[in-house]
């Protein structure tokens, strides 16, 4: 809650709107689903892209996530934003795992087909680093990867990650620590 009443009202209205959207989605109302899509598409897409790296793969997984969500809306506990986000990311996580399993261990690809940047050389270097990071992440445990994506891509707090993954804050902190330690050990050896 912010100090200004207007900001609080806005957050409250957003919360009510989201709760109503979830209720509408439960009833099969397309407008409710549209609200959920607008609100969480970016998070789901970022999670998928952070895990998979390939644009087309991320788009596919994002689409699969929202389609699967339609069928599992009954599993959603309530319409609070963190709960809905955690629910969608939970689905997305499983879709990522399924996607990776289907494709198997593919050759590492660096997708440079993203929108043009001011300095193509910098873009390429950033892309290669991101690819190295994803390659290093593939050596971590699934739970550690999940925590690192939420923490460093989605900018979730320890508490939010704990709530979203159903773990204690201490457990999340421990997973993050072990994941980062493993990355430090792996990344120097990674090419590029």
């Amino acid at each position, binding site marked *: 809650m912010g100090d200004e009443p207007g900001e609080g009202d806005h957050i409250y209205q957003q919360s009510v709107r989201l709760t109503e959207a979830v209720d509408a989605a439960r009833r099969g109302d397309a407008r409710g689903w549209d609200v959920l899509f607008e609100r969480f598409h970016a998070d789901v*897409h970022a999670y998928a892209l952070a895990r998979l790296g390939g644009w087309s793969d991320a788009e596919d997984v994002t689409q699969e996530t929202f389609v699967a969500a339609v069928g599992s809306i009954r599993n959603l506990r309530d319409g609070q934003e963190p709960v809905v986000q955690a629910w969608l990311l939970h689905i997305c996580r499983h879709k990522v795992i399924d996607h990776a399993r289907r494709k198997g261990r593919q050759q590492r690809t660096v997708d440079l087909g993203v929108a043009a940047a001011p300095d193509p050389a910098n873009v390429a270097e950033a*892309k290669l680093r991101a690819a190295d990071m994803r390659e290093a992440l593939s050596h971590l445990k699934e739970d550690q990867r999940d925590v690192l994506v939420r923490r*460093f891509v989605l900018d979730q707090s320890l508490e939010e990650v704990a709530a979203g993954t159903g773990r204690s804050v201490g457990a999340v902190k421990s997973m993050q620590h072990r994941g980062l330690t493993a990355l*430090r050990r792996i990344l120097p050896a990674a090419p590029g």
Partner: protein
Amino acid sequence: MIADDELLAPYLAAWREDSLYPSLPHSRELARTAMLAAVASGRRGLLGRALWFNAGFRLRGLRVRIAGFVGAVAVAAAVAAMGWNAPAGSFLHGVRVARQSVQLAVPGADLAGLHLEFAEQSLADARDGIDPAASLADARSELDAAREVLPADHSSPLWTRWGDDEAILGTEEAAPAGGGGRPAGDPAGGSAPSAAAPHSPSDDEATVPRTAAGGDGSADPTERPGAAPSPSSSPSWGGNDGGDNTPPSASAPTSSPHDN
């Protein structure tokens, strides 16, 4: 702090920046369309499942009824088959009695012939050692019933058949008793052996049962095998005829093989 980590910070930053790049509008709309299509198909699926449940429930109910009907028919057929000729004293004898009742109830049925047939079946059961007492009682009942419906014409082969069956019954009834007596008025006469003897149709010309052999001439042809009908007796019942087939009083048996 991760930001101070010289090794990890650039990787994490590059990773984050690369991952947060927004989706292409076209892909985004494709995802939205797919989701809304799933919502629409989910509604149809829900309706479809509901209809299918109802239809399935009805079909299951119909199937249960059909299965029950078929099962009942199968059980009834099995019981009828097993009890068709169930001998007296057996668990399914009632089926045989019911079957015989139906046969007798058929309009135009040859009642005398049927009763004789049933009596002969019971006699055959008794001879086979199947609950002889009950089988003989059945035979007795059938022969009595047959006598009630035998034709007035005593030249009918049915009379001969009835006499033969009576003779056999008398023999069978007397056998377990070791020559014991018959009930009063229903003596097991010495004519039984001759009743079982083969005979030609010409023997029946005078409607005199073969049991008449050795009789004293006072017996009635409808008398039990133990009776001794007169060879010269008329096919009619004489003074006691009256057309009702009621036999005159039986004469005392002259002899019985079992008495020997």
